[in-house]
């Protein structure tokens, strides 16, 4: 699924990485625990989380995650955007709960990791 389709399905807002919004992501992972995210071996994973701070971006950088959906109406700071831009990570804000975000993307055909 392309990043701009993810934005559409979630009625979300793409904050950075719009120039790369037509690349495709096949698998998703939902967690608020960064050590849990750091156990992922897959590359090119969509991270769905309600944890919005600089460490979320750092974790994505270390795990080669290219796109993060911030659910629960979490607001992304300018500092987070700058850090994400540096590493080429797309950030999406979305007002739905993590549960609903997962549900909608799962229905739209996004697959889980593992």
């Amino acid at each position, binding site marked *: 699924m392309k990043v701009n389709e993810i934005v559409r399905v979630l009625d979300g807002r793409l904050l950075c990485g719009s120039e790369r919004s037509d690349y495709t992501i096949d698998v998703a992972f939902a967690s608020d625990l960064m050590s849990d995210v750091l156990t992922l071996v897959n590359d090119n994973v969509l991270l769905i989380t309600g944890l919005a701070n600089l460490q979320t971006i750092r974790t994505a950088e270390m795990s080669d995650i290219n796109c993060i959906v911030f659910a629960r109406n979490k607001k992304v700071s300018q500092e987070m955007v700058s850090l994400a831009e540096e590493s080429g990570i797309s950030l999406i804000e979305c007002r739905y*709960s993590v*549960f609903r975000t997962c*549900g909608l993307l799962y229905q739209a055909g996004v697959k889980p990791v593992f």
Partner: protein
Amino acid sequence: MKVSDISNALELQIFSGSKGLDGEVRGGYVSDLLSDVMGNADAGHIWITLQTHKNVMAVASLKDLAAIILVSGHKPDENTAAQSEEEGIPILGTKLGAFDISGKLYELIGKK
């Protein structure tokens, strides 16, 4: 839909708190941050998480949650399971991750 219907449909393992399997489920909530669950989950929700320690039960009890589903093969700590028995709030388990089980649960019950 009852906790037991969901447990059967999603082939969940039942760790503890089977007294509560008849409880009605009004929605799902996914979070690993206890303060977030305290603030945002609603009574009757099934809570999907990988947190296994005892505080999870305190939150579930305060918020009147219907049940907890532990993801990615996590098992409740001993005192968490004991508390779940006492409170009659079931702790269920799955090998699937949070994304996967949420997707399936959302298909099953929809909304929120």
